[in-house]
């Protein structure tokens, strides 16, 4: 399988090069120190998201990292072959329509089996790449998280939960577009989170989401002219990137 491995590595290099992806830690280091097994979760704005995280992982970890992808999009035809054969994706059913906002508030919202299936992947020793927002956003804001991340962290407290901030990928291939336009992007692997013993779901999810919100505020490219705040004026140097939060 060396040919397969080599070609996967080449594919990973190709994806990273196209996405112009700079891979760093939260402290800005280029040397990653990632755990053997992890639940990677990230903000979601583009179909390129899981490809880019997958491509950014070191070779040894990449083999055992399984992106969780929606069966309704990736579950048939060429996409299925692509997702399953090359990326070893774990396909899940999405509950109903993601536009049903009220469903995000009830507990877990996953149909039976979804979280259990992902937990089995973890039990087998593989890592997961998940997008707790459930659906792609506009790349500038991060939606509320679904409960799956919390359930997984509860079921497998021994597996570190690693936040991954993806900056600018939504500009390469925004939702609804078909042709990716190259921009430079950044993949930031943040410090692992650990679920506190008595931490409840909403606290944990809020904490997990906050890491991404802060990372995005720090690394996202310029705000587009149509969403830039009035007082920013688009001209002041951003000497304090931290204050520019969403």
């Amino acid at each position, binding site marked *: 399988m060396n040919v397969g491995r080599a070609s996967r590595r080449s594919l990973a290099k190709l994806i990273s090069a196209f996405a112009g992806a700079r891979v760093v830690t939260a402290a800005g280091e280029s040397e990653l120190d990632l755990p053997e097994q992890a639940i990677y979760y990230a903000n979601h704005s583009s179909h390129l998201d899981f490809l880019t995280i997958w491509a950014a992982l070191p070779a040894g970890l990449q083999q055992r990292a399984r992106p969780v992808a929606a069966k309704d999009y990736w579950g048939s035809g060429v996409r299925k072959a692509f997702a399953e054969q090359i990326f070893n994706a774990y396909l899940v059913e999405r509950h109903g329509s993601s536009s049903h906002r009220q469903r995000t508030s009830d507990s877990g919202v996953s149909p039976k089996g979804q979280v259990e299936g992902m937990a089995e992947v973890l039990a087998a020793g593989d890592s997961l790449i998940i997008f707790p927002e459930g659906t792609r956003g506009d790349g500038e804001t991060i939606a509320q998280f679904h409960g799956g991340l919390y359930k997984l962290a509860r079921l497998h407290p021994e597996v570190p939960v690693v936040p991954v901030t993806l900056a600018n990928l939504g500009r390469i291939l925004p939702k609804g*577009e078909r042709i990716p336009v190259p921009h430079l992007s950044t993949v930031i692997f943040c410090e692992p989170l650990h679920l506190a013993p008595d931490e409840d779901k909403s606290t944990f999810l809020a904490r997990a989401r906050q890491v991404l919100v802060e990372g995005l505020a720090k690394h996202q490219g310029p705000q587009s002219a*149509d969403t830039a705040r009035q007082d920013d004026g688009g001209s002041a140097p951003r000497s304090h990137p931290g204050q520019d939060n969403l």
Partner: protein
Amino acid sequence: MSDWELGLLDSSSLKLLGGVVVVLVVATVIAWLLGRRLGPMSTIVNLKQRINAWWLMVALIGAVLAAGETVTIVLFLLLSLLALREFITISPTGRGDHKVLVWLVFIIPAVHYWFLWEHWYGMFSVFIPVYAFLFLPTRNALAGQTAGFLQRTAAIQWALMVCVYALSYAPALLQLPLAMEAGRDAAEGSAPGTGGATGAHLLLFLLIVVQGSDVLQYVWGKTLGRHPIAPSVSPNKTWEGFIGGVLSATALGAALWWITPFNPLMAALLALISCVMGFAGGLVMSAIKRDRGIKDFGSTIPGHGGIMDRLDSLCFAAPVFFHAVRFFYT
């Protein structure tokens, strides 16, 4: 040795590249000695990275010139695309601009460089400033997003002008010699490569003078720089660096007159114009970076930053150098 030729390279170009290699060897040795004396300071690490990147860039330009005009044009097309990617990343474009960006990246540069490759001077010189300039805002208006329309459109047009149009004047120098010898009409539509070694001399002259000017401004600025020219734009650009760098690079250009079709005085004058334009390019790009709150356009070239951080001066110098030569010599 005088008849030796490989692609666009002849023995004179080889001497020139040899001279650059000697300078790089000296620089490498100095950086190594400094590193041993001072330890791994960040300035020394950066200096070594910069010099290593210069080795690669010189090898690359030598290789593409040896491979001929077509390969050289392809290299500059790729550089344009990489620069464009950096430029639109820092531009305030939104989701409504996506379809216009597809034109900007995938269609217009290819068409423009095609005209360049065909030596179709008329189309090469007007395609972007006239047709693409008017087309892009029209396409964007059709997309229907009006908020920030002028800023978004202007940024997109700027990206195209600087990263594609201006930069492409560097490989366009390769087709000037025929126009200088046989006239502009004869040059129109001539085959790629007809500029021969003389075209490569023009390109190498411009590259060495402009990039040399950058390096010399850096050296003069680091050693003697006291009075910043525009501190709110770039604290590193000083009068001492500017004057010292431009004058010494002008002298360098004059000393290279033997490789060009110019006499020493004209070589000096053209070098001076190119260096001043190169400085202007660096200054303008610094202002853009400062506005966007970034230090570098990217991290493609270790020690230098992004592609645009290295090519900013060339983008401003190449069109003016091209048109000055075309005006006075054809």
